[in-house]
Every structure is written in C-alpha cells, then in structure tokens.
C-alpha cells in the first residue's frame, strides 16, 4: 500500500460504468465488489492504484473499476505487474485473474512472482474451469470432471495445489477466501494490500454456467485459519491437513519485499569516460 489516501471514499467510486460481460450469478461479481470495498476502506486514491490482469472472464475485472488498469494477454499479468511495481514503487499494484490464466499458461510466472517477492497483491478467482472459452478443465479441476469435450471422461490429472505451490515457491502472504463471503474477502484484500511483499489470495469463485455444482461451495467452506502462521513450516503443516475449503489467512511472512537497488547517482556524461581510449 502506497500513495495518498482519499477522504472517506465510497466503494462505488471504484466501480466504473462498464457493464460486466459475466453471466448472472457468476462468482466474479463479488470479487470486483470486494476489491472496490477494500480500496475504499483503505482510502486509496484511484489514480495511485493499478489493477492488472490477463485473459479470462475473471481477467475482465480492470475495466469494471475506476483505477488504472491493464488487461494484458493470457497468463502474463504477473510480469506486467512486476515491471510496473519495480518501475513505480509509489503505486499500489493489484493483479487479478483466473485459475487457467494463473496456474496453467501463467504457472511459471506464478512460481517466480512468489519467489521474487515484489509488493503485489495477486487475487486468483478459481472456478476450476476455463469459463471464457466455454468450459474446459483447468489445473484445479477434479481428475474425474467430465464436463468438457476436450477431456472426455475427465482430465485424469491430480489437481494443482495453489497454496502449497505458493508456499513452496516462497510467497510471503497466502490466503484463501470464498466469493460468497465478500466481507472476509474484503478483509483479506485489505490485509494483502497492507502486507509488504507478494500476497496471494486464492478465491473460490463459482462458474455458474459451466460448473453449476459449485453453488455447493457455500456449504463446504469453513473458516479455519483465524490466525496466520508466521513460520513457513508451520503453515505447511496446516496445509497438509487442508481439504481445499478452509478459508482465512494461512501465512504471513516477514521477508523484505524486492525493491530496486539504490546507488549513488552518476551523470550520463561521466559514464562516457569508460569508453575513452
């Protein structure tokens, strides 16, 4: 969290007039609402916040907010955000996207963003499906989900474990929320923004159209992680017991965030001397 604060802003101030393309009932609606609430709560000036995304239903978020946005290409939101934050330490940079965008095509950037620990807040709206391309299996899809013609009978692969990977890769803030509980999600976003370093929030966000059975998420989630671990190993032990539906902030580390190195300034003309014969 950087930049000046607005005086008593309203969550609506962070919502644009662009109509979402989302299906009625999509979990992603609650995420844009929660982002807006969190920004209002923290009183961040709109012009000092940037919201970066890739491609997918979830990645449409930026246009629906009134902060600066960058709707990039599929899977590359994290690098865009990393470059922005490294070049502009004064901005608050949020990143949002889906499970396909973040864990499939974007998996490598996820690994390395966790390690690099640049001060970003990364919100993944996980619906265990590619919504935008009409319902194929994503890395978090159950091995036997046979709802896609691309993987008849199911993808047959053990689901990707976002939190375990994030911890192993070195993320310094790891949490899980459910889009059906926007108050908790808002709280987590606030905490993540305030945390100095890379924060990852795994949001269970149902796809009403291609995974209607995800309506049942509301009965499955349980807020277990009331106190974030500050020790990575401890967080790991907690996670070894996870059923995938525990919510809360799992881990909050204290490694310093990555920043550009400061060096004494040198004039360009003085640099020329190295070339002079």
């Amino acid at each position, binding site marked *: 969290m950087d*930049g000046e604060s607005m005086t008593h802003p309203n969550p609506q101030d962070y919502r644009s007039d*662009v109509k979402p393309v989302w299906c009625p009932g999509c979990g992603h609606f609650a995420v844009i609402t929660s982002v807006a609430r969190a920004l209002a709560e923290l009183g961040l*000036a*709109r*012009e*000092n916040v*940037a919201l*970066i995304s890739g491609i997918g239903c979830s990645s449409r978020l*930026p*246009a629906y907010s*009134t*902060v*600066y*946005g*960058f*709707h*990039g*290409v599929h*899977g*590359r939101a*994290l*690098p*865009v*955000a*990393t*470059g*922005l*934050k*490294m*070049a*502009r330490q*004064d*901005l608050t940079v949020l990143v949002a996207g889906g499970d396909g965008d973040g864990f499939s095509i974007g998996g*490598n*950037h996820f*690994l*390395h963003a966790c390690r690099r620990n640049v001060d970003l807040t990364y919100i993944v709206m996980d619906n265990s499906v590619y919504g935008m391309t009409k319902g194929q299996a994503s890395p978090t899809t159950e091995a036997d989900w046979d709802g896609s013609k691309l993987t008849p009978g199911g993808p047959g692969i053990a689901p990707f474990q976002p939190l375990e990977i994030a911890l192993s890769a070195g993320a310094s803030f790891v949490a899980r929320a459910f889009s059906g509980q926007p108050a908790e999600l808002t709280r987590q976003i606030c905490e993540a923004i305030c945390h100095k370093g890379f924060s990852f929030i795994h949001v269970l966000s149902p796809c009403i159209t291609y995974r209607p059975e995800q309506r049942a998420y509301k009965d499955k989630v349980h807020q277990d992680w009331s106190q974030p671990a500050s020790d990575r190993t401890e967080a790991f032990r907690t996670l070894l017991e996870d059923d995938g539906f525990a919510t809360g902030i799992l881990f909050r580390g204290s490694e310093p965030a990555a920043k*550009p*190195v*400061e*060096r*004494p*300034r*040198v004039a*360009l003309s003085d*640099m*020329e001397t190295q*070339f*002079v*014969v």
Partner: protein
Amino acid sequence: MTAGRILMDAAAEAGLYGLMTRSLGPQIRGGESAALVRLGTRPVDGLDDICDLLVAVDWGNIERFAAEIPLAPSSLVVADPAQGPVPEVIAASGARVVMVPFRDLAAAIPDGRVNMVALGLVASLIGLPDATVPSVLSKTLKRKGEAALTAGLQAVTVGEEAVATIDDTPTLDLSQAPTGREKWSISGNDATAFGVLRGGVRFVAAYPITPATEILEWLAVALPKVGGCLVQAEDELASINMILGASFGGVPSMTATSGPGLALMTEALGLGVAAEVPIVVCNVMRGGPSTGIPTKSEQADLNMAVYGLHGDAPHIVTAATSIADCLFTAQWSVYLAEAMQVPVIMLTDQAMGQARAVIDRPADVAFVGRRETVSAQGAMAYQRYAVTASGVSPMAIPGTPECAYTADGLEHSPRGTPSTQAAHHQEQLDKRLRKITGFDYGAHWAVIDGAGEGDTAIITWGSLTGAAMDAAHRLRADGIAVRVISVRLLSPLRPEVVAEALAGVSRVLVVEQSHGMQFSRLLRAHLDLPGSVRVCARPGPVPIRPHEIVAAVTAWDKGE
C-alpha cells in the same frame, strides 16, 4: 582476445581507427578462437577482403575458422614451427608463411605468455609507434600486479625483436591518421546499451541470451546509477511483459534478446501495438533458424521483426548501420517508441554487437524519448485511445487524477472499453497505422553515401553497410559512380523516400546476409525498384566482403 584488444587500443593511441571481431569454437570455455582486427586511418566499419596478416599461435581446428579468415598470396602468415606443418587449407591460399617460435620465445621469459609475444610481433610488424603497446599494456595489466606487467612487457619486447627475422613486412601509413580527436573504444552491444540510456530508458527486464547478454550486463550496472533498475526475468515472456508494465507506468523501458527470445516475445509485442505501450526490443541477430549458430552472425531475423506479429500490427523496426551507429540507432529507437507509443524492434547482429571498434567520440544527439501525456482532466472525459489527426493519443500515466483508464489488447472504443464493432476496429487500425506512417523521420531513415550519384545503387542494411561503403569507394576510384543506401528504418518502409533516394538509377544491387533474400523481398513488397535488380545474398556466418560487391557490380558492367 586480450591481445587483440590491446593491439587495437594501442593503434587508437597512434590515431588509428579499428575493428575487432572474434570467432569462437564450440567449446563452452577455452578451446580455439580467432580475433580478427582491421586497422585504418579512416573509420573502419567492416572487415576487408583478405587478411593481410595472420598470426597463428596454434593450428587447432583451423578448418573451422578458415572460411572466416580469407587469405591470398599477398597475405603474410606467421606461425610457430613447433605447431607442426602448415595446414592444407592455409597452404592452398598461396599466402607467404614465415616461422616464429612463439612458444619457445614465451617459455624463455618467467610467466611469459604466447599471446603477448604475438602482440609485440604484430605491433612492430605493422609499425605502431614504440610507446603505444607498453602504454596500453600497463593500463590493462595494472590490476594484475607488477610481476604480470613485467612479464607482459618482456614478452612484447621479445615479439618485437622477432620481426627482424621477417622481411618485406606490411606496414600502415600512420601519417594519414587524424590526431587530436577523442577516440572511443566500444563494442556494439555497449554502444546499444549506452544509446538506450541516453534515450531515456530507465527500466529493463531481460533473460540472458547470446549474443545480446552484454547489453544487459552493461545496463544492470549502469541503471541504478541513474535511478533505474534491471530485473532478470524467468524467461522472455516475462521480460517483455515486465517492460510493458513499466512503460505503462510511464517509465521508458527496453529489453534485449536474440532470435529465439524474440520469437517468444511476439505475442506481447502485439499487445504493445494494440494497447499502445511504447517499448524497445533490441534483437542481436545470430545464425538461424531455431537455435542455429548462437555465436555467429546473420541477418535473417528481419522477416520476424517486420512481419512476425499476428493481426495487423504496425510497429517500428530499426537497424544500426555500424558499431558506432548502435548508439545513435538505440537512442533514436527509444525516441520513436515514446513519440509514437509503439513497440520498436531494433536490429543489430553478432558481428556488430560482439565486435569492438575504435571510433570518434559520437556526437550527443538531442533525441530523448518524450511521450505525449495528459494531466488531470474533467471527470471521466478522458479518452485514452482518442482518434487524433496524428494518430497519437495523449497517454495518462498512473498517478494522474481523473484519467484512469484500462489499457487493453482487446479491440476497443476510443475510451478504451472493449468493442467488437467494425467501425471501432477500422478507426483504431487506421489510427495505429497513421501514427507511424505519418511521422516525420527526417533523414534518419537511411545512411546514404553518394546521394544522387551514378547509375547504380547499392542498397543494404546493418553490418554489411561497411562493406558496401568500402566497395563504393573502390568503384568510384575505378570511375564507376555509385550510391549506397543503408536503410535504418526497415519498417514502416516508406516507398516514397526510398524511391526518391533511388531516383535516376537504372540498376539496383541489394546486398544482405540472409539465405531467404529477406531484405530484397521486403523492398519488393513495398515498392517497384527502378531498372534491373540483382541480389547479392548469402547466409551467415561468413560476411560479404567489399570485393564481392565490387565484383557483382562490375560483372553487371560486363553484361554477365
């Protein structure tokens, strides 16, 4: 390598210009290598036809290098008799071979090194003033301590003395060398790095790749000194997207790579075009396709640079015309990117990037990237992609109140909201094309020698420029008027200006280093070249030499 560089710096002290390129074997470290040095009293931008002097301290795998070291009967080869008989490939050239026992001479000196003996020999052979080599040597070996310096100086002296055993030696006429000018010794990659810094770049993200890494290494050290930074990315997909992010934040940004890396960047380059985010990508070409020949030069990434983006994605492609010009072209590229909010791909190649030249201090040019931005406006009135006459839409930089917008790779309305409408698409496509075709590039689009002269034009680009200029020089000396056009702005290729530069000729010789005649095809695609056209094209790694260009022109004269 070290010896070559010392020789060149010593020559520079004597007022000479120079060029040094290297040729390496496949071993990761060690193994055979050759340093090719050309010295002259005028700036040297390319290698000459033949090698006047070859000093071979050993013959290991000479076959691998022979094609890159042309010898003729006029050449002098100095070899160590202990390394065995003169290889067939050398003998066949007819070059005069003389023997000097480098190894034995070096062995006689405590810590004496063979390459220093060879250095002394060469310096003396070509007649460099006595003091120059020791002077450079003491600077270079300073860090290594007194003993190393003494050994070095002794070895050089031994080498100098060995010249007495050779008669009829080639020398340089030093009286023509200009004096009193500040000279720089710089590699193409360092020149590119310094050029983008001068242009205003303050953020770099990159992934190492041969032969571009030196640009990045130079910038990693320099950027923090001007308040910038460099991030080593996990891959090229990350690096190009990182610089898009930084530039979206208002900070001029670049990356450097080579063919395989550029291939991974094309999707994001398209994003830069559509979202109108200025960036510079310097692509140092190596032999292709695929992994190809990473340590050798070729001009075959031209197609990908110009055409490699999906959709109609007009962007800019520039090319440096010499090592010294890497500086200018890099700086200009940043300027163009910022002025037009567009990705610029700057092409150089291994022969330029990893070569080192002694040049005149480059002039300080005024091109510093400056973006058209907006300051706070009336609430919500801001249109990021406003349709303007120039095609350039003023850009809001995050931090500017009341102007927040979403940069988007989806087609959009002027305001920036996604649109699938034909009219919006047409309007934005027109705008993005107009801003780069309507821009005033001035005379910088090409380096032209002999403008308006003669009946024949040689049109070329990149590291072949030096050879083309040399060839023109010789042709003129033979009474054949020619002009040389080396194109610096490869895309958008502006047919009118090219046609104007070609006006009056009836013959055009296209010179390029690609198997697929990529440059020639690019020209054809955009304009009708006047008169009859011939193409002198060859793939890497052996560069096209001046005499080949001369021969191509004279063959035409003879009706061949």
